[in-house]
């Protein structure tokens, strides 16, 4: 379980995250919903040690999570909005690079893991191509494969569907749900309201750095009237 307590982050005297607390159970999805600039991406970046924070405590499975060394422990992984694939190496090398140099796997072992993952994501015939030769959906699957290869406990997705068409959005939602079933703890930052319907998750609606409403997607689907603020956000987004 990922627990974040009283997380605060300011920039130029403006509170980007204002006293945020939440729990996401292992194998569950936390969906942070909100318009641009409400602090969703900052939250993900803090969890991946890409941003500093002013205050807050972090726990993973009851143990304190040291974010300063989170990249070395591979406890948290991230699939970036722009994928950030390494353009100068092949599809397979995008996966093996960290396995060999960070996880100290042998080249053979790393290649086996990469081949397995590429097969799982339908990219086995693209192994020796370069990321620039992939479509948007394929790039995202590669970014996901690269993250999963490191076996993080928590996977963060920053706007996972922003660059994709509706068909691919379904596919991505399916992938995210499957990852949760496999036991990964998932944190998604999005303004895409369609994910609400597609994922079984806990929704955290964010506004001006605060979580202003929370709901389980199951409850929201059964009793949408209970959640005024989420409804208002959806109406605004439509």
């Amino acid at each position, binding site marked *: 379980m990922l627990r974040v307590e009283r997380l605060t982050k300011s920039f130029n005297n403006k509170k980007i995250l204002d006293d945020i607390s939440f729990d996401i159970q292992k194998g569950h999805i936390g969906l942070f919903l909100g318009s641009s600039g409400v602090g969703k991406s900052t939250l993900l970046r803090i969890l*991946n*040690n*890409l941003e500093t924070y002013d205050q807050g405590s972090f726990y993973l499975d009851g143990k304190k999570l040291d974010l300063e060394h989170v*990249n*070395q422990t*591979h406890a*948290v*992984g*991230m699939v*970036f909005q*722009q994928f*950030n*694939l*390494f*353009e*100068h*190496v*092949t599809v397979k090398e995008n996966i093996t*690079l*960290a396995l060999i*140099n*960070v*996880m100290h796997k042998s080249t053979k072992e790393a290649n086996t893991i990469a081949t397995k993952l590429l097969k799982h994501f339908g990219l086995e015939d693209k192994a020796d191509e*370069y*990321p*620039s*030769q992939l479509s948007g959906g394929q790039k995202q699957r590669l970014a996901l494969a*690269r993250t999963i290869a*490191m076996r993080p406990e928590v996977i963060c997705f920053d706007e996972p569907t922003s660059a994709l068409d509706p068909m691919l959005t379904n596919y991505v939602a399916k992938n995210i749900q499957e990852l949760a079933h496999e036991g990964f703890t998932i944190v998604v930052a999005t303004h895409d309201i369609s994910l609400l319907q597609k994922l079984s998750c806990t929704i955290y609606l964010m506004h001006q750095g605060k979580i202003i409403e929370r709901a389980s997607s199951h409850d929201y689907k059964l009793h949408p009237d209970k959640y005024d603020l989420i409804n208002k956000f959806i109406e605004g987004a439509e």
Partner: protein
Amino acid sequence: MGFSMIIDIELLKSSFPLLLCGAQVSLQIAALSCMIGLCLGTIIALLQRLNIILLNLVIGAYVTIIRGTPMLIQISFWYFALGLEPFVAAVLGIGLNSGAYVSEVIRSGLAAVGKGQIEAAQVLGLSKLQTIRFILLPQAIRTVLPALGNEFITIIKDSSLASTIGVVELYRQASYIRGRTYDVFTPYLAMALIYLTMTTTLSLVISYTERRLNRHVKS
């Protein structure tokens, strides 16, 4: 006036082995200077990213002095002021000069690598050194390869300045032949052709390397 009246074919044939010996020395100077320039330039460009004010001031002074004074003076300094061997003074003079230019080229290449690449490397757990080695430098070098190629071609040509401190390289050999035969055109034309061959070959090698390294770029 016909070609044969300007060029002494017999002299051309007989002086060619000597000129090639000179060209070999020129290439040695150029290759060693390129290595110094590339290593020094890369280190400087990476050090500048640390944003240490004092270090940046020292680097700024070095680049300003090197770029603002003729290379001839720099080579002379190493030879006359420090009393180094002519060959060593030439290599050091040209190499240190090149380092200043290469550092600027590599710096622009590093700046062109997207922040997202560094962040992705960080999230995957790569150390700062690994990020430089596996992500930053390979991408930066690809971007600046044409500019680096120009710099290396310039170095081949600038190696002729080593003749001013007594290194018997290509230009010096051609000058010896001119002095001995009183024929200016033949040895100098042959020398020009040898320089042209060296620079064109390097240019082709760089173009080939550039194509190979950039095969990941969608055409």
